[in-house]
């Protein structure tokens, strides 16, 4: 368990150093910047929050930026900092949602706004409970890889929310709102064997396509969806590469793309679930 504390809001002063790493969206926006400090690291989410990490204790101090609600800063902690620290400790966390399908769990990996949460919600509403909406935590058991459930919450943009949780209060446009699991959006609260991983494409395709990835391709793609705290920490990066390579060897991985239209989701669900349950039978 990581010691965590939250301070009051503060203006985000300029940090007098260059970041050693950044997370950049395909549009070129920096969503996170990584700095070294005297005692460890500062992970800055511009205009949102700073997270100061003590490298010895791995304790975390969160300083929300002016105007940032503590609850929103806490989501950054759960969905970015905690998995990053988990990987730093030698665990396996990736940026993905996951649902129960057949007798196992399948994960959907993708960049932000690629539709991970919406897809998990759509699967859930079709009777495949979701395990996690944003962070895929995988453990290793005697029987193979297990997907661990996370909080029974889905955070959806207003348009997805209108489809998947029509009776809930309307979300503000452009902002995600949290929905607790419910009868129509069930959550699976027990560890579940990992069956397959799907890497979400950009949605430019007019048809639903599923293509099996060779393990070598899967390895490089899975690495891109990992949470890495220190890309210059060679021993930890090497160890994480080993863990992902083992995962890529042992797990069926597919490239999944589909038109990002809500009307298409039922076809995606049917195609994926038929394929996954068929593979289980085979």
């Amino acid at each position: 368990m990581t010691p965590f504390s939250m301070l009051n809001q503060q203006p985000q002063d300029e940090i007098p150093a260059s970041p050693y790493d950044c997370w950049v969206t395909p549009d070129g926006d920096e969503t996170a910047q990584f700095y070294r400090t005297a005692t460890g690291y500062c992970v800055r989410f511009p205009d949102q929050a700073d997270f100061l990490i003590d490298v010895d204790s791995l304790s975390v101090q969160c300083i929300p930026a002016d105007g940032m609600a503590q609850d929103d800063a806490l989501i950054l902690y759960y969905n970015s900092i905690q998995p990053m620290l988990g990987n730093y400790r030698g665990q396996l966390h990736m940026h993905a949602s996951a649902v129960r399908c057949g007798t196992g769990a399948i994960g959907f990996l993708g960049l932000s706004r690629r539709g991970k949460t919406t897809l998990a919600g759509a699967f859930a509403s079709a009777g495949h409970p979701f395990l996690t909406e944003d962070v895929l935590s995988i453990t290793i058991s005697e029987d193979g890889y297990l997907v661990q459930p996370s909080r029974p919450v889905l955070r959806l943009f207003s348009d997805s929310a209108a489809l998947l949780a029509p009776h809930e209060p309307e979300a503000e446009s452009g902002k995600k709102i949290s929905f607790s699991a419910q009868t129509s959006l069930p959550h699976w609260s027990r560890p579940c064997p990992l069956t397959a991983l799907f890497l979400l494409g950009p949605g430019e395709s007019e048809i639903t396509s599923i293509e099996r990835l060779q393990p070598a391709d899967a390895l490089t793609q899975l690495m891109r969806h990992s949470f890495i705290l220190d890309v210059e920490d060679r021993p930890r990066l090497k160890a994480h590469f080993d863990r992902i390579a083992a995962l890529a060897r042992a797990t069926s991985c597919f490239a999944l793309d589909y038109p990002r239209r809500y009307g298409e989701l039922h076809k995606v669900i049917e195609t994926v679930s038929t394929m996954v349950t068929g593979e289980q039978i085979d």
Partner: protein
Amino acid sequence: MTKVFDLQDRFAPGADVVAREVGGETILLDLGTGTYFGLNEVGGKLWQSLEAGQRSISELCDTVEQTFDAKRDIIERDVVALVQDLANRNLIILEST
């Protein structure tokens, strides 16, 4: 200018390079740049040999000749080309000539 290597030139894997075999392909990760490279079966065999201490181009050619059915001159041409490529990308380091 690209250096032309001799069969007796010896190489070592770069210190910042990690390799793992997955599904018959060997993936190299350059930890310094975060760049990935894929090696086919022959390339993967060469990498294993480099890691095992067979460091000269000539020794690498011997390994390929023992494992794969091909003529020596073709093997030497292909191994030199691969070594050249790996060296240009700093994935292997020239130890001695």
